């Protein structure tokens, strides 16, 4: 072993507070330091993931208190995969926003990178922690930095979007705290494994109340209907790379928290059906809303909500194949939606209202960005040679194995809606006449680099899905094995 999981939380948190100090000495260091931190953490997480796949999960005890008394971090195949994915996307966000606009001032860059580091700390912490109150703290860290990042541009209506997000976020955090208190009053423990071991002794009335409060409290980060009213406003007002960070990092950690609660902690059968139903409602609502959007980023935001609904449906199938498909969908959503946000925010860079119509005819003046956007659009609707095809295929196979025929029909119908609104944009880019007032914006070199990396991943996974399926199988097996999780955590000694 080369390092311990606690570094994933300690180092970015430390970096967030060192950035302003270093900035006093050398101004460029506020941009460079986050990159160094993310590169180090990414290599560390890849190393640890390799170790975990061979030797079983790493349980890290904090401050010498063994579970169930102290806080512990669990780096298993499932959480390790998500951490690696998040750090990779975080690194790409850093590359993209290294010089998002030419000649950015020192002050905004400093604030931006402090908040980005906090966001990554919180999201990684949500995934790694094995203690529900600790998870609540990390959710609040994510929340506060996400509100601030949303309100980053002072010129737009960003404060309004951020305030909406804040009201919903802190109300749901209150419900989350209530759920934690209910569980604590019944079991006297906050450790996830210990709760999971003893949950069958709790009366159903407390169990169901706590589960409902948990899902309300966590659903806000996971963009679950009806708690996703913040998403379109936030995505359209936040800076472009922040939108990608939300879709790729924050939402993933929210889904992880819900899945951990439903799969590991609680033993209620109906919760899976609930996931399927709420996922389908989210999906149908989001895709029908997306088709009538006239603004680029709002359309992408609704599409992101829809994808998360699909992920919830896949998790709700409840079989190992379903979990596998859900993880594949999460991976693809993270990669492709980041690509779409990156490319899309350059396509509407100079247009004030960010209308979809403003991208008309940009295929000639911005060939690479347009091509990458089209690639992302083809991949996310699930056309065969790209990554999105495989995840949808595995999802349909998993649903068919469980006999959910009507759900397959619904998903396929929704896919057609998806095709309509994405291809409408691609059609405008390539086959419409250019709007006179739109000035194309050439992407900076580092932005282009991160977009091309994502585009290559989309194509490579499309042709060789085996590169990723092995680790996804391990991760889904790890999530399904609840007794193994409990035993691993509770048997740990110093």
């Amino acid at each position, binding site marked *: 072993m080369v390092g311990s999981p606690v570094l994933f939380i300690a180092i970015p948190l430390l970096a967030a507070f060192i950035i302003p100090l270093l900035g006093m000495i050398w101004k460029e260091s506020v941009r460079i330091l986050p990159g160094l931190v993310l590169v180090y953490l990414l290599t560390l997480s890849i190393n640890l993931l390799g170790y975990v796949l061979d030797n079983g999960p790493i349980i890290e005890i904090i401050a010498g208190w063994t579970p169930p008394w102290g806080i512990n971090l669990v780096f298993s195949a499932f959480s390790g995969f998500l951490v690696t994915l998040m750090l990779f996307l975080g690194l790409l966000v850093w590359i993209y926003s290294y010089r998002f606009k030419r000649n950015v001032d020192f002050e905004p860059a400093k604030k931006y990178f402090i908040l980005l580091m906090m966001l990554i700390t919180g999201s990684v912490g949500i995934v790694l922690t094995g203690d529900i109150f600790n998870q609540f703290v990390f959710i609040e860290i994510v929340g*506060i930095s996400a*509100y601030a990042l949303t*309100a980053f541009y002072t010129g737009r209506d960003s*404060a*309004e979007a*951020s305030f909406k997000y804040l009201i919903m976020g802190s*109300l749901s*955090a209150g419900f989350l*705290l*209530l759920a934690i208190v209910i569980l604590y009053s019944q079991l006297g423990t906050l450790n996830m494994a210990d709760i999971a071991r003893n949950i069958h002794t709790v009366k159903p009335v407390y169990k169901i109340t706590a589960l409902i409060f948990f899902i309300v409290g966590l659903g806000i980060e996971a963009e679950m209907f009806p708690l996703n009213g913040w998403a379109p406003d936030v995505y359209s007002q936040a800076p472009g790379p922040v939108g990608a960070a939300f879709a790729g990092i924050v939402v993933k950690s929210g889904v992880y928290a819900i899945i951990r609660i439903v799969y590991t902690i609680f033993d209620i059968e109906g919760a899976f059906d609930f996931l399927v139903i709420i996922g389908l409602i989210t999906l149908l609502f989001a895709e029908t809303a997306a088709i009538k959007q006239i603004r680029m980023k709002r359309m992408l935001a609704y599409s992101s909500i829809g994808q998360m609904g699909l992920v919830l449906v896949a998790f709700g199938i409840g079989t190992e194949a379903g979990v596998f498909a859900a993880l594949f969908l999460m991976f693809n959503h993270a990669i492709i939606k980041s690509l779409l946000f990156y490319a899309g925010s350059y396509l509407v860079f100079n247009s004030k209202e960010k209308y979809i119509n403003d991208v008309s005819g940009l295929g000639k003046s911005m060939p690479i960005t347009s091509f990458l956007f089209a690639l992302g659009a083809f991949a996310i609707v699930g056309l065969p040679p790209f990554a999105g095809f495989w995840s949808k295929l595995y999802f349909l196979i998993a649903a068919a194995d469980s006999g959910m025929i009507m759900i397959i029909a619904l998903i396929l119908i929704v896919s057609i809606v998806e095709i309509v609104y994405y291809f409408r944009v691609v059609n405008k880019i390539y086959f419409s006449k250019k709007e006179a007032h739109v000035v194309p914006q050439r992407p900076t070199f580092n932005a282009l680099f991160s977009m091309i990396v994502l585009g290559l991943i989309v194509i490579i996974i499309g042709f060789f899905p085996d590169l990723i399926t092995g680790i996804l199988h391990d991760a889904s097996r790890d999530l399904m094995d609840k007794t193994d999780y409990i035993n691993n955590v509770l048997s740990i000694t110093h």
Partner: protein
Amino acid sequence: MDNSLQYLEIGFYGSAIILILVGLYGALMKKSLIKIVIGLSIIDAGLHLLMISIGYIKNGTAPIFSGEDFVVAGNMVDPVVQALVLTAIVIGFGVTAVALSLVIRLYRHHGTLKIDEIKNLKW
């Protein structure tokens, strides 16, 4: 004796729930941004009271082992919920600070604190 404990519990839990409901009313029904933020703080206060009352035992002492008059651990109130409440207070402070700074930004941008008049973003 038992009766008094019961009344005390009802008092604790009842006032905690009333606080939460008052806070929810303030956060969801009021039109002024400042009042919404106050409502969110009141919800937090209610939750903190609820957590503290869960850890309370009658005639309990502070959860500190002090050298001379050594107290039995069974007589102490639950220290875990108190630690949780301390953390939750700090978090609530942070959220309130961010919320108020956003209110200042909104007031400068729109010149009003009425939530009905701030609706540039719609569904």
